[in-house]
């Protein structure tokens, strides 16, 4: 892996806790800092709070205590701050969540016009560029239902990139895909990582984690059990629980 230059911290997560209304503790005293251009992979058994962590970062879930600061902006009760943060973070979901009533192109164009107030022509050319990047340029007039899962997820990535976010969040982006389509989505994610995008990926793809990530976080029961560089983490895990998890999967 080539040496990457990281910038300053872009996300500071300090001691956050999140308990769901049904009493399940999803996150517990969770702290981490993420630098610019860093690719962080979060792994762990299901129900360990990985997705919740990601969803707290852009305000899809409310934290009960602790603080999240994104690029100097605190994620607090101020609606303007929250909106600002959401607009600087792109998110890709497990179930794609494309807008079914809009074409591929409209899916990518919409937020640029609404949020960034881009003109229709600028938004369109940006969208075409992004769709080309993810390899969907010949399907721009199709509706999401006419695309395969892998294609839909690549459109979803283009849609999230359209706002030129500072950070991309991937919430199990390949978990709902057929095996033969996982590769095409991972390839797009790898390209992004190599271009220096700050990324936080919740994933079960350990191969991807090993190859691309700068930092791996292993979570269980809402806590960070272990964090380390990909090399340290996969070749010499320190904690028993990490070893157990890796043995089960590898």
């Amino acid at each position, binding site marked *: 892996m080539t040496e990457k230059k990281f910038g300053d911290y872009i996300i500071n997560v300090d001691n956050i806790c999140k308990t769901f209304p049904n009493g399940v503790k999803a996150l517990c005293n969770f702290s981490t800092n993420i630098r610019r251009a860093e690719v962080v992979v979060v792994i762990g058994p299901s129900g360990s709070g990985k997705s919740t962590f990601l969803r707290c970062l852009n305000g*899809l879930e409310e934290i009960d205590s602790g603080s999240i600061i994104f690029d100097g902006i605190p994620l607090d009760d101020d609606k303007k701050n929250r909106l600002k943060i959401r*607009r600087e*973070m*792109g998110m890709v979901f497990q*179930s794609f*969540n*494309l807008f079914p*009533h809009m074409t591929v192109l409209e899916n990518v164009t919409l*937020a640029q016009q609404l949020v960034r107030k881009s003109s229709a022509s600028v938004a369109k050319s940006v969208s075409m560029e992004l769709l080309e990047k993810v390899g969907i340029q010949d399907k721009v007039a199709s509706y999401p239902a006419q695309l395969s899962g892998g294609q839909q997820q690549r459109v979803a990535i283009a849609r999230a990139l359209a706002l030129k976010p500072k950070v991309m969040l991937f919430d199990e982006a390949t978990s709902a895909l057929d095996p033969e389509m996982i590769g095409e989505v991972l390839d797009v994610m790898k390209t992004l990582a190599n271009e220096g995008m700050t990324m936080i990926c919740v994933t079960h793809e350990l191969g991807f984690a090993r190859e691309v990530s700068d930092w791996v976080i292993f979570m269980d029961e809402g806590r960070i059990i272990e964090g380390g560089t990909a090399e340290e983490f996969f070749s010499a895990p320190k904690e028993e629980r990490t070893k157990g998890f890796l043995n089960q999967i590898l």
Partner: protein
Amino acid sequence: MRKKSSLTLTDLLIGSFLLLVCLFFVYRIKVGLNYNWAWDSIPQFIFRFDKENNEWVSGILMTGFYTTIRLSFWGIILATVFGVISGIAKTSSILFLRWLATTYVETMRNLPPLVIIFIAYFFVGDQLLSPLGIDDWAETLSPASQNILSILFAKPGYLTSFFAALMTLAIFEGAYITEIVRAGIESIDKGQWEASHALGLTWYQQMRHIILPQTFQRIMPPMAGQFISLIKDSSIVSVISIQELCFQGIELMTSTLHTIEIWTVVTLMYLTLTLPCSLLVEKLETRLNLSLR
């Protein structure tokens, strides 16, 4: 699944039984009922030739039909507006708005429409609309504008009661549309909210561009069904002397006693309004099924 369209023996048996029932019915009317048929007097109630002005004018039933169309047309628009607003309020995160919408829906759904009509007519119409002086204002207008008013709504002098009837109908049907809209909004996948939220859309933008367009696509069939109900329910305003189709039918029946002929015509007139809507529903449902495949 494709349904069989060829006739089976059972179908034939049922069909011939129904035919027998019809024949018996006709026979009873012919023999048992001492009825004075007068079909030839009916056309004048639809269109008649005005000899004084030398022109064709609409008959009593036809003018009633027009009023029913006016009530239905404006009623559908207004009820949709009420229903969409309070349907959105029902899914709001603000408790007060939910309470307001729920109170509205539950009041309307738990009262007989007749009671609502009377309340609206005597309270809303008399106390709220009359002081506005709509009818007096309409009298002062030029004949041309009066003409437009009577084509769109009702003749000057009848405007207040027309608006009272229209509002009642719209508020009553709006309650049912509220529930359709609410169910439609709630049927939209949570992921749609989350994806648009993550893109930094405001609540208004989410509703306007993501949630409502999909909701409307989905609720088309039940909405069209509700519009049919509205057209039919417009007949209840006959009790407050709105001269719509049913009212005119009752008036004619009492003065001419041609009961069967008049109600046959009224039936056909309602069907010309509601059947196209039904066909539309069927079409929409097939299209929806296709797009969801």
